[in-house]
């Protein structure tokens, strides 16, 4: 194998010789630099390949004896030893690869190409870092530290701007302090032990002070909070190419040195390192939340990542070796951070649009450069620790190591910080990739400007005079409004089509992205293979194939057909192997998903990402059905969350809503993560376990369900997603949380307190379910936007499912699944029908519609069946659900919950009537006189769902009996069948007979009217009514639709206060305030920064006293 010495000798030598090569020609010098870096990358890779080929498993790989070189031919304490083990090889490969890509990026970009001097400095930097990684001598480390630092100062200043000089100068001051402390430590250590070789230093005794000085110095080099103000200016002021190198390459060497020191350090030292890392991680994330400058934000993120790695180094032994964890995090951080810096360089060559607050100037990247957007998304996802990227696996193993040791504070720091990081990263993503048409946040209720303030619902009553004015104004503006709606869209497109200049070649960034993707997949294979769960990677394969098809610009229809085919085959293979509850939900997810995909077939042309994301989402839902290991489950769950986020963010004004969705989903996922780690016996269905596991897992699932209090994400996500996607989210995806509750039901049945056996977690879930049903219904009543109405309605329906589930009785569980299945059917009808209406009318505001029954009769019929099925009016399916719900509740003795559920179901009538009346009945608007029925692709799934609903209504036992079988054995039998009558301990219900009686009583009057009054019946035209002693001539004056339930609003008064929304807004504002006040410690003054550095060192030393 090639000796490690070349990793230092070659770049150093080349750095000196480079000016000579420049004489031969600029390109020769550049080629030399690239060749050297390529060789340096190949070198450690070659070692790795040899080792991997020669050793069978990971454990053996970690024990492989390092390649060692003693300089000058003397043995180690006298000479300097360079050693390359598996860790060194890994980090070196990553460092040199990043450096190679970074320099390539700078060479191929269109402006500010690096000069020969810059190349020399870059090579020196690489030399320094390689040296830091390889050397085993403490003084030699100091030398390489200095080489690294000096080349960094020079590189920062090479930008030539005043700010860059200033930043470089601050860097010098802080770096010098750290170096001095290091040097003093080295002197001490040599005085005490007579050796500086890491391999020969004694492992214990008497060296505490010296090691403390070394640790302090290294920590300072790693820019810990709050002594890191000096480093942050660099990211903002320096050339992004240089920033990438400083952030990704520079720190890695120092970090590795600290890792190499750990065998010498005492537990106190380690705890201090972990603490320092934790503080840096969490505060950097908080401050990053408040950044408007992208590069500064990335800078904070870098600091935070370093903090996380310090935490890993300091927190000691875990389930997998620290070096693997570190390797995953480091590789992930280097490639993604460097990649992101390069991206800012690419799309913002003139350094003008890096500010996030200036959204007006942001280019509509999503429309113009879908590939670039995909790349940014991948880099951000990797940085935020989403699956399958390396940091995701690292996060899992880090938390699994911390939780059993009871290090709750660190767990909270890691997860809280990660959540914030995802928050600001994806906020940037949505802001940066979406056009300026997206307001960035969503209003709860969209009240247009033409409604005067006095008639707005807050005041309760409608002032008649201003109301009339409003109507008049509205009528006058109708024509203008219709014109406007048709005109705004082209305007938006025009704005969006301002050209986006890509300055330079994206190839290095693409390579970095691909390395990350393949690294992630390799990690996924590595971590999932031991549990024989490689099949969980199917969704990823689907994602990759779909991405490929997207790149080839295959039309969405074909992609969707392929997706449907794939899901069909998958279901065919998977479903027969399932049984019981998983089979019910399997049908729900996969067959329900297929139903949703039909509506998407309406899309014309090529819709980037649509088909692939929908297919991936359904496949990842499929994963949940059979996953066995905890890690496999968490992987699938997170994958599902991120894919659904990407689907939601496609909505035209969905950025705010999607971000909320992501934040809540990730919060829930982290709660699930800790809960899973707490499970003692692995993730098996119906495992009984600790209370906390139940609470944490339950919280995660409840977030997905959208339980009241945790529902903030729900209305926006459902409403602002594309119309057909909303249907998918509401009818299919929302059941994922419910399914997991069923799977882990054993966690919820133990009493919270021994003395009160009735109060279990399930009991609390029951109350939450009832409250959710009520809150969802109330919130739906007062919406003007139809999609918000449906969104809140879904929330309420999920509340019933939760309530039924929580009963933990046979009838309760049957009802919960019965509701899940019928909800799929009727919500598909409602959402897709409304999608058709919105598609045709171009508005979501209900009062802008009216009288559409004559234009869209099929959609009307579908909505009619949908609302009857939802409301619970016999003879359709809804009544079965109500009957089972109340019977089960009263059997269980949950009387008050039953009362609440009944109230909620009565409230549901309000919004359902409003929905169908204001859209389809009342007065047809002039601008809608010519519109047609919804497109065929929308009608097909509705008709299928109608057939389903009618079948189940007619023969309820078709659905109830299989559900009964699915949960057979879990609970004592409380229901019985007498023919088609379902008998409970309290009452009975014969769905069949009800249907016949209803048909009978309906037909008799109908036949009567048709037969006896046929000659007299006379249909009249729209305006053939008398209102205000006059025949109306404008639909607007007589369509009663806006603020429909004004009296209810005023009757309820403060009861309608949105407490949950208010609470989460408070939380957000507190985090923001903490962020902006913490940020104030960065005064920008070099002296202050130097003082911080010194104080930090002093505080660390005080804390470390006696840490031997």
């Amino acid at each position: 194998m090639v000796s490690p010495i070349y990793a230092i000798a070659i770049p150093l030598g080349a750095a000196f010789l480079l000016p000579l090569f420049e004489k031969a020609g600029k390109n020769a010098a550049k080629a030399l630099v690239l060749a050297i870096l390529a060789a340096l990358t190949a070198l450690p890779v070659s070692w790795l390949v040899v080792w991997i080929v020669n050793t069978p498993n990971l454990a053996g790989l970690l024990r492989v004896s390092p390649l060692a070189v003693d300089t000058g031919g003397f043995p180690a304490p006298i000479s300097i030893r360079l050693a390359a083990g598996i860790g060194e090889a890994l980090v070196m490969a990553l460092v040199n690869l990043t450096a190679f890509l970074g320099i390539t990026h700078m060479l191929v970009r269109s402006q500010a190409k690096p000069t020969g001097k810059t190349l020399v400095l870059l090579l020196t930097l690489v030399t320094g870092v390689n040296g830091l990684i390889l050397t085993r001598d403490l003084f030699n480390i100091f030398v390489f530290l200095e080489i690294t630092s000096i080349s960094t100062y020079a590189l920062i200043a090479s930008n030539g701007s005043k700010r860059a000089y200033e930043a470089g100068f601050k860097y010098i001051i802080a770096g010098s302090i750290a170096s001095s402390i290091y040097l003093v430590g080295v002197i001490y250590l040599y005085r005490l032990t007579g050796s500086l070789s890491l391999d020969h230093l004694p492992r214990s005794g008497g060296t505490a002070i010296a090691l403390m000085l070394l640790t302090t110095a290294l920590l300072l080099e790693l820019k810990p909070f709050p002594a890191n103000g000096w480093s942050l200016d660099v990211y903002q002021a320096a050339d992004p190419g240089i920033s990438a190198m400083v952030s990704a390459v520079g720190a890695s060497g120092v970090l590795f040195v600290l890792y190499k020191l750990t065998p010498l350090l005492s537990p106190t030292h380690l705890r201090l390192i972990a603490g320092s890392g934790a503080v840096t991680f969490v505060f950097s994330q908080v401050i990053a939340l408040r950044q408007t400058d992208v590069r500064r934000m990335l800078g904070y993120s870098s600091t935070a990542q370093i903090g996380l790695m310090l935490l890993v180094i300091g927190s000691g032994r875990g389930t997998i070796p620290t070096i693997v964890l570190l390797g995953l995090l480091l590789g992930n951080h280097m490639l993604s951070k460097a990649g992101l810096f390069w991206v800012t360089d690419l799309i913002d060559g003139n350094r003008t649009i890096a500010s996030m607050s200036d959204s007006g100037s942001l280019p509509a990247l999503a429309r113009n450069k879908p590939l670039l957007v995909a790349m940014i998304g991948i880099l951000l996802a990797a940085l935020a620790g989403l699956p399958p990227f390396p940091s995701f696996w690292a996060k899992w193993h880090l938390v699994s190591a911390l939780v059993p040791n009871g290090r709750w504070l660190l767990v909270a720091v890691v997860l809280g910080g990660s959540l914030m990081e995802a928050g600001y990263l994806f906020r940037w993503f949505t802001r940066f990739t979406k056009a300026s048409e997206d307001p960035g946040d969503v209003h709860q209720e969209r009240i247009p400007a033409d409604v005067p303030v006095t008639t707005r619902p807050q005041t309760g009553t409608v002032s008649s005079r201003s109301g009339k004015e409003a109507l008049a104004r509205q009528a006058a503006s109708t024509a203008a409004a219709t014109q406007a709606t048709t005109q705004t869209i082209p305007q938006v497109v025009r704005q969006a089509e301002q050209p986006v200049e890509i300055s330079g070649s994206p190839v290095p960034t693409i390579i970095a992205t691909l390395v990350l993707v393949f690294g992630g997949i390799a990690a996924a294979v590595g971590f999932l293979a031991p549990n024989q769960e490689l099949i969980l990677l199917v969704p990823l394969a689907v994602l990759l194939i779909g991405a490929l098809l997207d790149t080839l610009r295959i039309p969405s229809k074909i992609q969707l057909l392929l997706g449907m085919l794939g899901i069909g085959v998958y279901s065919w293979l998977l479903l027969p192997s399932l049984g019981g509850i998983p089979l019910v939900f399997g049908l729900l997810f996969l067959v329900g998903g297929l139903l949703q995909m039909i509506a998407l077939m309406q899309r014309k042309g090529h819709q980037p990402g649509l088909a692939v994301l929908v297919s991936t989402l359904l496949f990842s839902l499929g994963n949940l059905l059979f996953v066995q290991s905890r890690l496999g489950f968490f992987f699938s769950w997170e994958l599902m969350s991120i894919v659904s986020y990407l689907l939601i963010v496609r909505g035209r004004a969905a950025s705010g809503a999607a971000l909320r969705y992501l934040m809540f989903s990730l919060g829930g996922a982290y709660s699930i993560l800790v809960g899973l780690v707490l499970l003692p016996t692995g993730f098996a269905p119906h495992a009984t376990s600790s209370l906390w596991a139940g609470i944490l897992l339950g919280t995660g699932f409840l977030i997905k369900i959208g339980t009241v209090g945790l529902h903030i994400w729900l209305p926006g996500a459902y409403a602002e997603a594309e119309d057909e996607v909303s249907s998918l989210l509401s009818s299919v995806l929302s059941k994922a949380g419910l399914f997991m509750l069923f799977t882990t039901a054993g966690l919820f049945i133990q009493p919270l307190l021994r003395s009160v056996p009735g109060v279990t977690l399930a009991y609390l879930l029951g109350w939450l379910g009832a409250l959710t049903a009520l809150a969802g219904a109330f919130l739906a009543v007062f919406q003007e936007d139809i999609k918000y109405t449906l969104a809140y309605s879904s929330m309420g329906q999920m509340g019933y499912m939760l309530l039924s589930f929580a009963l933990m009785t046979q009838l309760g569980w049957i009802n919960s699944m019965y509701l899940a299945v019928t909800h799929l059917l009727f919500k598909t009808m409602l959402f897709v029908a409304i999608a058709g209406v919105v598609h045709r009318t171009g508005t979501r505001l209900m009062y802008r519609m009216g009288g559409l029954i004559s234009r869209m009769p099929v959609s009307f019929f579908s909505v009619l069946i949908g609302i009857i099925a939802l409301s619970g009016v016999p003879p359709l399916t809804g009544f079965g659900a109500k009957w089972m719900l109340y019977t089960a509740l009263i059997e269980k003795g949950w009387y008050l919950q039953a009362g609440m559920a009944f109230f909620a179901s009565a409230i549901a009538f309000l919004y359902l009537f409003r929905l169908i009346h204001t859209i389809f009945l009342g007065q047809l608007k002039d601008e809608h006189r010519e519109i047609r029925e919804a497109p065929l692709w929308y009608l097909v799934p509705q008709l299928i769902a109608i057939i389903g609903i009618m079948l189940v209504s007619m023969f309820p036992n078709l659905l109830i009996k299989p559900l009964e079988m699915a949960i057979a054995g879990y609970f004592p039998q409380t229901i019985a069948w007498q023919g088609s009558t379902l008998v409970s301990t309290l009452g009975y219900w014969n769905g069949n007979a009800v249907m016949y009686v209803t048909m009978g009583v309906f037909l008799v009057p109908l036949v009567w009217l048709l037969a006896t009054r046929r000659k007299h019946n006379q249909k009249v035209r729209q305006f053939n009514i008398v209102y205000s002693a006059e025949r109306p001539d404008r639909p607007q004056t007589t369509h009663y639709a806006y603020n429909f339930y004004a009296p209810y609003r005023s009757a309820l008064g403060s009861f309608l206060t949105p407490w949950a929304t208010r609470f989460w807004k408070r939380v957000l504002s507190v985090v923001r305030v903490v962020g902006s006040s913490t940020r104030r410690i960065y005064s920008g003054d070099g002296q202050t920064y130097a003082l911080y550095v010194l104080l930090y060192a002093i505080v660390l030393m005080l804390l470390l006293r006696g840490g031997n």
Partner: protein
Amino acid sequence: MKDIAMKALYTLISLFVILNYGLLLTGTMARVRAKVQGRIGQPVYQPYIDILKNNFLRTSIYHGVMFFLGPVFRLAGGLGTYLFIPVIFGSTIFSNFAFSGDLLLVMYFIFFGQLGMALGAGQSGHPYSPIGVSRGLAQMTAFELPFALAVISIASQYGTLSITGIVAAQQGGILNWVAFTNPLAMVAGMISFLGMSMDNPFSIVLAPQEIPIGPPTEMNAGFLGMLQTNRAIFNGAKLVLFMNLFFGGAGNLLVMVVKTFLLYFYVVFVGASFPRFRPDQSIRFFLGIPTLIGIAAVVLQMV
């Protein structure tokens, strides 16, 4: 086959009885109201005349399919509600189709007609219809809450949701009636009944005096006739339901007539004595004291 023919015959008898009784009751109560207000009032048989007249008018104006179906829905709702209730305890003829479902079915079938009617009226395009509907639905949600609580309380008291079962449990003397064994449930239920009957003080839904509001606004001729027919049947059904739930049911037709007459009289009595609430006032009313009474009735069953 014979069974089905007999059932059809019984059903017809049962419907005939309730229709006539309902119409006569409506006529009688109209006269009672007139007496209170110092008028002579209409003849008792006036409802018959109204229905006949409406059914023979020259034109029935309608605005579309849903409008056409609205009264059909309404009457089907009334008929269905009635047919799912056992009227006379122990009688085969008047047991109707109670075997199809229990009390929950009746409670939800009440909505069938209301929803259909509301939709039909909505298609007229007249703003008074949806205004009336919005008030009516809003008020309905409020009075259903105490009623539901009363029902839950009774169901837990007797351990059944079957109406026949509830009536059976009340047999054996006046003191076995829910009115005495569970007075709180009765009070909550009977206050709800006022709202359900849409008489004063809860009559804003129809606003009968000043401007006719609500679904009948645009209905005429055969459509209106159907609504009036329904009102008689539906009223009868509701009275029978409340009689069964709170006042021991009826063993024969005479007892039924007496009990339901008194129940209706109670509604008229209250209506004649009190002025009308605004919608928001009536909502707040029902969600206040009656709901608390209902909760108390339920809680008493839990302890």
